């Protein structure tokens, strides 16, 4: 089997943090973890190309890097693509996740990577690719590579991968039908009984976990700050120009308020099917308080009201989707130099 490997500068043996800016280097043989992978997989497995890139370069030029990797994987006529494992290295994890997802998506060859569950790459890509739980320590390298190899080979042979805890990958959030001996009522009672008597039990539907994000530092001086209004209440200009869906929205819009000091109902509508929208449609300031913020801007309580408000519909939105929308809006706010946000949620 022909294998292409992606490594960062550290695992590629080309330096540590001082080399994080390095552009991609391509070698025609196995390097570091790739060599170990050849041992793990035994005869017939050969790493034909290794792409090594600096973590910072990868983070800042992900599109270029992705194009390059896709080209190399294609040219090398690879049967499998491996990236990492990355353990807790965040930039590395995000790059490995993005590259695996792109190779899987564009070329359709089996991909796997490995990360610690805390790695931000997990949050971003666990639903699209198999990410082996590598743990945080690089000492787990061989174990992670073994699991990556097994999963990749199963993918290549179109075999069942098995449950996450059995195959050692991070759950992808897929629900599969299966047969059980007991009805849900019986299982529920058994679970409740185990819970009340202190016995171990396992929920069949784990609740989503929310990793706490440390609060950014407060605004030092509001009178010098640019404030933006973001809402998940679905306020959009009449006609809904971006066609934001009334529930499970997949996009957001930014709408001009630069010359407005009071939003008028006749110019707006609400793309949200989860609440009675008449009050906001009568007076959009009830959701997007441009009138007050404009006054406070004139009184120099705040420095500036950002010239656009951001809107999407937060109704029954899958978590991963909301997160992507949030990231995209964050990017746009950053580019606009916004210092702080008032987020109105219905």
């Amino acid at each position, binding site marked *: 089997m022909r294998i292409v490997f992606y490594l960062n500068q550290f695992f590629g043996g080309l330096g540590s943090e001082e080399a994080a800016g390095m552009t991609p280097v391509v070698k025609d043989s196995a390097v570091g973890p790739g060599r170990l992978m050849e041992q793990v997989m035994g005869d017939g497995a050969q790493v034909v190309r290794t792409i090594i890139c600096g973590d910072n370069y990868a983070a800042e030029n992900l599109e270029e890097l992705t194009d390059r990797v896709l080209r190399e994987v294609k040219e090398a006529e690879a049967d499998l693509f491996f990236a990492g494992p990355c353990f807790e290295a965040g930039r590395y994890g995000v790059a490995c996740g993005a590259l695996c997802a792109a190779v899987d998506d564009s070329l359709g060859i089996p991909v796997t990577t490995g990360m610690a569950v805390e790695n931000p790459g997990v949050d971003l890509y666990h639903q699209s690719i198999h990410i082996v739980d590598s743990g945080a320590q690089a000492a787990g390298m061989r174990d992670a590579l073994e699991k990556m190899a097994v999963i990749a080979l199963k993918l290549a042979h179109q075999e069942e991968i098995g449950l996450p805890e059995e195959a050692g990958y991070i759950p992808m959030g897929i629900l599969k039908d299966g047969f059980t001996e007991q009805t849900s009522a019986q299982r529920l009672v058994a679970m409740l009984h185990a819970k009340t008597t202190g016995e171990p039990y396992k929920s069949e539907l784990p609740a989503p976990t929310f990793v706490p994000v440390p609060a950014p530092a407060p605004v030092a001086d509001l009178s010098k700050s640019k404030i933006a209004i*973001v809402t998940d209440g679905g306020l959009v200009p009449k006609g809904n120009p971006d066609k934001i869906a009334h529930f499970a929205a997949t996009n957001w819009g930014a709408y001009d308020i630069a010359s407005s000091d009071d939003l008028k109902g006749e110019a707006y509508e609400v793309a949200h099917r989860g609440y*009675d929208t008449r009050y906001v449609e009568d007076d959009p*300031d009830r959701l997007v308080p441009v009138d007050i913020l404009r006054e406070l801007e004139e009184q120099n309580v705040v420095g500036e009201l950002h010239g656009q408000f951001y809107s999407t519909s*937060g109704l029954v939105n899958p978590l991963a989707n909301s997160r992507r929308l*949030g990231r995209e809006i964050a990017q746009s706010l950053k580019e606009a130099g916004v210092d702080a946000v008032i987020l109105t*949620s219905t």
Partner: protein
Amino acid sequence: MATELEKAGIPVCQVTSVMPVAKMVGSNRIVQGRGIVHVMGDASLPPEEEKELRRKTVLEALEALKTEAGS
């Protein structure tokens, strides 16, 4: 939404009537809104009073933005 903006380093104050949800997802700065149908208003009030209420809510949100979270 709030947490993604905060991950990018932008302080966010979330104004909402559904406090438990905002707390569950880990919002750091939350101000109680006046109702799901009009977080920044109250249609039952006369216009001037409603605007005053909105001013109060916006000022509370701004106050939260200039305060260290958790304090």
